[in-house]
Every structure is written in C-alpha cells, then in structure tokens.
C-alpha cells in the first residue's frame, strides 16, 4: 500500500515538532504533506509538552511525496509572517499555518485578504510575537555579578509570553558583543561569553541575581526625569503594562511617583503644605523668592513683591493685609495713608515702629486697573492661604513673641482660618510656638469711617494697641 493510497483512504497524521520555535521543521513537513495532498483536517501538530494526542491512533509515518511532485507555493509575505507566528505560544499555530499553505495552492493571493479569518489570526499572532520581542529588547534588565575570575557577568531574568528567546539572541549579541551575559527565562536560557552562544534549560527567577549597585542610580534617574506636571498614567500603562513591572527595578517607584505628582500639583495650589525643609533660610532668600513667586494669580499682575521690614529678632510682628499701590511702588510695607495712620497710633501707644517687624499676609498688590488708577482688591481666602507659606517662613525667622494682626485677612494669614473680629478682639490667642496672636482692625478701615463710627473704632483701635504694648512690656520684664 503506497502512501498516496493512505491519503485517499483518509488516514490521519500526527506531526511532532521537536522544538516549539522550529520553523524549518514545520516548513519541511508542511511542504511534504501538501505535496501528498493531505488536507488540513487530517493533520495534528504537536509540540513538546503539548497535552493529549487526539490522534494517538493516527499513522505517524508521514507520506513521502513523489520525486516529481509539484512544487508548493507560498507568498513571501506569508513566509515572513509565519516565521514569526511560529514563535507564538498558541498551540493551534502550526495547524493554522498549514491551513493557510494549503489554501494558497488554490487561492494564491489569499494572504492579502485581511478580511479572511485565518489571515487575520495569522496577523494577530505575528503582531503579538513582534510586540513580545520588542518588549524583550526593551525590558530585559541585566544585573552585574563578579565571576570568580574577576570578570563581570551580566545576568537578566525575563518572562516572555512566547517562544521568542532564541529568535532574539542575535539582537543581544550584536548589542553586547564584548560582554559576558546570560538571559534566563522560564522557557530556556541563553549564555554568551563574548565569542559563543550556549543554550540552556529553563530557569527560575531565583537563579538570577537580586540586585545591582547601578540600580539606585537608575531609579534616581527614573524618578527625576519625569515631569509631575504632566501625569499621563494611561499612556504609560499602554506601553508598559503591569505584567512587566515585576521584573523592572524602576517600576517599584511608580505608585509613589504618581501619588507624589498629585500632591506636588496640590502644593502649587496650597503652598502652605510645602515641606518644612524647603523653607528659605534667610529673610533675604524669602525676599528673592517672593519676587519670583507665582503660586497665586496675584503674582502675575503688573506689580512687584513687597517684603516685610524690621529687625530679625523683633519681639513684635505686625501683619497687614497686602501692599497697596504706594507700597508696591516703593517696595516697602505700610508707607501709604493707612501706614501713616498706623505709625501715628503705635507711636501714641508707645511702640517704636523701628523695633517691630512689619509685613503683610499677602506679598503682592492685588488690584484692577481703572484707567490710570490701580484699584485695591481684597485677596481671596485661597490667595491668603497660598501666600501663608511666606508669612510663616518670615515668622519662623523673626520669632516674635507677639504677632499683631491688622484685620481679618491678616488673622487668616496667621491662623489659616477665618475668625470673627468681634469674638477674638482684645485678648491673646496662643500660637503653637508659644507666642501669641492679637487681632485688631486694619487702619484702612478707620480711614473709611467718619463721625461717631470713626470715633468709636479709633478708640477701640487705640485700646487694642495699648493692650499689646502692656503685654509686650510684661513679656520683656
């Protein structure tokens, strides 16, 4: 009985592929089978480790084509896709490829038809394998080990999805030709000693070294090169899916970097939350920094920052709301009408202005332009809170015993919350560092009043200042 008769009788064949990535072997067998007219549903393709032989009873002796059997045709494109698709871990791949070779004998251009399910499957396999190879080129991370002979050896652990290891050996050889390296995977291992490539059996993660001195540098680099103002986690994940993370040393940083980026953004909104270690260390540094500050929109107006002034160790710190038009022009606090009024009152109370540190809750002048005039605008609570960072930095350096807040905005600048003037006026509020806060009206408020109302408020203001003076004297004594 000839083999051709076998076929006609409808025999089944099983082809065992010796190595899961053996394209040449598959090609040779496929050619013979097509030449013997064995239709795809009569062939089972198995590879090492594949489960169950459905065709156990099949005639494994393959038919041999006649010498003059017609040549088999397959498009160039098909061959290049097939060479890659063979590396896929899909157990159906050999059958799919055989089916496509079979079909090409009667439909020579079938592989150009992207709407055909077999062709689409082939392309999908090819695409997955190419992606896996690409990720291997990218995500293999070598770790250095010193061998007994003192030579450096670079060892990587990688977990490919498909049988791509051998196919990609050349890439690593060309790149690291003069290095000694090994790539360990659960599917097999590669070892290059600078002149020859050796293949080895599958390895386990524990066989690879666990760390490398350069890893700290690499992680530092990874953390520093990323711009927290541009968080795009989705874009990162689509290129570096989580399944690869476990073998990338830098990936352990990602959760913190993402969380940190959000808080770094938030910090720009609420500067008060900045780390204490970032605080400027001198009043001059604060002065310089507030001129650059744009943490809130006021800094972007056409103005300059106004720094507080007075002796660094002053026992009294007087805080106003914000510089006005004249202060902004002069670059000094409390030089306009309200400042002159303040000077008069504190002199009356027996306080020397020169001995106090005078500053504002907000460092830039907020205004709207009306023709040539710049009209004062009250800062919002958020702006005051943002600028608080600077006020606190000043306070930390001046270390006053008493802080006198002029008006509700100034009080908010110290306390971080709004208090009712009626409730807090006239009595000290203890602050965390042991100093105390006194709150009174802003002198600009007095300027807006007249008649009886003015008399009443002026008296209250004088009373508050007198109380502060008395307390100061008591503290100094």
């Amino acid at each position: 009985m000839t083999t051709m008769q076998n076929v006609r009788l409808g025999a089944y064949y099983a082809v065992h592929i010796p190595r899961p990535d053996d394209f040449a072997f598959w090609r040779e067998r496929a050619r013979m089978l097509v030449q013997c007219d064995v239709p795809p549903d009569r062939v089972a393709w198995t590879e090492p480790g594949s489960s169950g032989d459905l065709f156990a009873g099949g005639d494994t002796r393959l038919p041999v084509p006649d010498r003059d059997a017609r040549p088999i045709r397959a498009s160039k494109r098909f061959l290049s896709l097939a060479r890659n698709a063979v590396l896929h871990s899909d157990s159906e791949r050999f059958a799919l490829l055989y089916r496509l070779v079979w079909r090409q004998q009667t439909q020579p251009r079938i592989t150009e038809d992207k709407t055909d399910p077999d062709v689409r499957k082939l392309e999908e396999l090819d695409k997955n394998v190419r992606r896996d190879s690409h990720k291997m080129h990218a995500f293999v991370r070598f770790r250095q080990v010193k061998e007994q002979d003192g030579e450096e050896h670079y060892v990587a652990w990688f977990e490919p999805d498909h049988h791509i290891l051998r196919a990609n050996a050349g890439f690593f050889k060309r790149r690291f030709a003069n290095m000694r390296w090994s790539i360990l995977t659960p599917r097999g291992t590669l070892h290059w000693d600078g002149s020859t490539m050796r293949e080895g059996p599958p390895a386990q993660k524990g066989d690879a070294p666990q760390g490398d001195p350069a890893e700290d540098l690499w992680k530092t680099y990874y953390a520093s090169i990323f711009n927290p103002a541009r968080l795009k986690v989705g874009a990162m994940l689509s290129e570096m899916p989580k399944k690869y993370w476990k073998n990338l040393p830098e990936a352990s940083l990602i959760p913190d970097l993402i969380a940190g980026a959000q808080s770094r953004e938030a910090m720009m909104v609420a500067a008060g939350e900045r780390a204490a270690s970032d605080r400027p260390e001198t009043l001059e540094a604060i002065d310089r920094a507030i001129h650059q500050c744009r943490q809130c929109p006021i800094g972007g107006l056409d103005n300059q920052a106004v720094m507080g002034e007075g002796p660094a160790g002053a026992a009294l710190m007087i805080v106003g709301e914000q510089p006005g038009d004249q202060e902004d022009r002069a670059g000094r606090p409390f030089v306009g009408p309200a400042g002159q009024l303040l000077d008069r009152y504190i002199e009356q109370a027996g306080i020397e202005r020169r001995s106090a540190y005078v500053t504002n809750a907000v460092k830039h002048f907020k205004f709207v332009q009306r023709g040539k005039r710049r009209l004062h605008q009250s800062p919002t609570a958020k702006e005051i809170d943002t600028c608080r960072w600077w006020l606190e930095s000043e306070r930390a350096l001046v270390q006053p015993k008493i802080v006198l807040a002029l008006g509700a905005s100034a009080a908010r600048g110290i306390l971080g919350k709004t208090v009712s003037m009626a409730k807090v006026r006239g009595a000290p509020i203890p602050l965390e560092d042991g100093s105390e806060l006194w709150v009174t009206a802003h002198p600009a408020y007095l300027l807006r009043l007249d008649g009886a109302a003015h008399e009443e408020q002026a008296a209250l203001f004088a009373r508050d200042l007198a109380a502060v003076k008395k307390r100061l004297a008591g503290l100094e004594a």
Partner: protein
Amino acid sequence: MPHQTILQKLEILADAAKYDASCASSGTAKKNSLGGKGMGSTEGMGICHAYAPDGRCISLLKVLLTNHCIFDCHYCINRKSSNVRRARFTPQEVADLTLSFYKRNYIEGLFLSSGIIKSSNHTMEQMVETARILREEHDFRGYIHLKTIPEADPELIRQAGLYADRLSINVELPTDAGLTRLAPDKDARQIEGAMGGTKMAIVEAKDAKKRFKHAPRFAPAGQSTQMIVGADAASDADIVGKASRLYDNFRLRRVYYSAFSPIPDASAVLPLKRPPLIREHRLYQSDWLMRFYGYQPGEIMQATGADGNLPLDIDPKLAWALKFREQFPVDVQRASKEQLLRVPGLGVKAVSRILIARRHRTLRLDDIAKLTVSLGKIRPFIVTCDWRPTLLTDRADLRRLLAPKQEQLELFAA
C-alpha cells in the same frame, strides 16, 4: 559647594533635563558592536526602555552636564536668576554613567545638553569631550544626541557631529518677539545660523559618503529642534508656519513641541497657567499630517479657528475635513490614495489595507469596519457599495456628533 555624590548630581541634572521634549533615538545609521572592543548597537528603530508616569518614553540617559548658566532666559528653570540647586558633572562622570546604564540595557544611549558655563565654547568643548570619551576610549556604538550651543565655534560643532548621531539646537520660541522678550540673551539669527551650518555639514558628509566609503559620518540621524508652546502669545498657525519653514530651510528630522510647564521658582513674565497638554498633542498631530499624510502647512493653518489655534476638542484632520466638506464623501472603491488619506479616522495603515483589499473584492461597510479601528468617525466621509452618507456631511451638528464627549477631553487634558 559641599561635595555632591554622583547620585545627588544625577538627581539634579536629570531633573533639570525633564522639560526637554525630544527623546527619540531612532533613524540613525545601523551599528553594532561585533568586531569592536566596546558595546552598543543601533538598529534603525530606537527602543523605549521604560515609560515614565508622564507617559513619555525613556530611551536615553537625558541629563545636563551642568545646570549652572550664565544666561537668564525666563522660561528656563536653570536661568541665572533662579535659585534652584546647582550641580555639575565632569565629562568622565557622564560617560561612566552612560556606559553603566547601557550595559544593563536601561538605555539606548545618551542625550546630553547643558547650561552655559564660562562661555559657549567652553561648554561645547565639555560636551564634545564627553562624546569623545564614549566613542574613542570605550568604542561605544550606541546612540548619542548632543544639544549644541548655537554661539559655539563652528569647529566645535563639526567635532560634535563626528561623534553624535544627532545634533539639535533649540529654537526655543515660535516668534522672534517671544524670543526677545523671554530669552534676552539669545538671538534668533544666531540660532538659525547654527542650524544652517549643521545642515551644510550633514549634506556635505552625505555627499562625501557617496563618493568615499570611508568618509566620516556626520550626525547620521540628522538634526532636530524644540519649540516651547504656550509661553508666549504665538498661535498654532504661527507655530506650524515656523515649523514648516524650519523643515524646509534646514531639513530637520523632527520639530519637537514642549508645552510650557510651570516651573518651580518661575519668572514673573511667564503666563500663569500652563497651556493644556492637549494643545501640544494637536500640534504633534498636525506635524504628523504634514510628514505622513501630504498636508501642506497652509492646509493645517486652514484648520485653525479665528484665533489661529487648532481646535482642542477634535483632531486637526477632522477639523480640516469639516471645513472642506465638499471633498467628501470619498468612494473607498475608487478614490486615490491621497483622497483616502484625508478621511478622518483612516490612518496610513488602514488606507494601505483598503487599497489591497479592494483589488480582491468590492468593499462593504462591514469590510471597512474590519480594516479600521472605529467606523463611527469614518462613516460620514465615505461611500461603499452598501453605504452612502447622503446628507451627513451637510449636517450642521456633524462636529458635535463626531467630537469626543467632553468628559474624555477633560481627562486627557488634565
């Protein structure tokens, strides 16, 4: 300055480099380390070895040699008047870092730029020296990108090009007025002069290579530049116009756009808000349309709105199609490749698939669905044997129908 460790310097000098948008490591001459003494290969396509949480790929060690600078450009975090922490690498230190990262397969090579210290020439010399150590002492065959200093001596730029795969010079800002205002120490004519010089050198080296096999290579991956978007008032039309002039005049490989991002300790002349990242994305899309889809710069400008900016809610290709509805629908069975490339939602790949498939069969809407990613966007603009969008392209609300839902936009732009 107290003694800094390599780790501390790296932290500062990589951080200072993070505002640079260019990172690509592709398109250079093929090299490998077989038969050499060192290591490294380039195989056409560059490899992204990691991705940062900002979605950008990391393929190169991107650092500054130093972030000290004698210039005072407002948009730059390293400007003289900024009080950032400063650090300085030696050329040897950068070369060592590059090699040690490369050996572990972390990177494709080095992208080195620098603040200007002492003088432009001195700085450029240090950068060239770094590349020299890598190439000559270590026979390094990976990728090197040097950001040249426009004011440096042309001879130094020539040396840089002999070691580097790619050279770049930042144009910084799309308009001369913006440059004058924000980078008072820089000069547009000098920057473009340097680009012209680099272009000449590249062209000459290519010619020589054709005639003499052993002629030295000069920046085989060409030159690129970067423009900051959103730091001045320049519109997208200005930017696209500038980019296309640069492409034409200097045969650039790429123009990178970097959305101005708020920098710590920012200068007061900068705008308060960063431009939406999506604007940068739209500019890259339009760049793509010009490079791969045959759009003329003028056509991109036609897609901008009254303010000269590209719409943010839809991509520039769709914006163009909505303005030139009379060009649609196109018949997928008969239309030319050029016409198909203009269909919103049809990419280069999909078009070539359609061209092949239609030789074999008459295409139905179903077939198109299989060949493309999403049919919804394409449908109003095509005709198949079983589909004709009659009045769709005339519908006044077509834009609303096709624009992605607002929430998506917000997410992306965040």
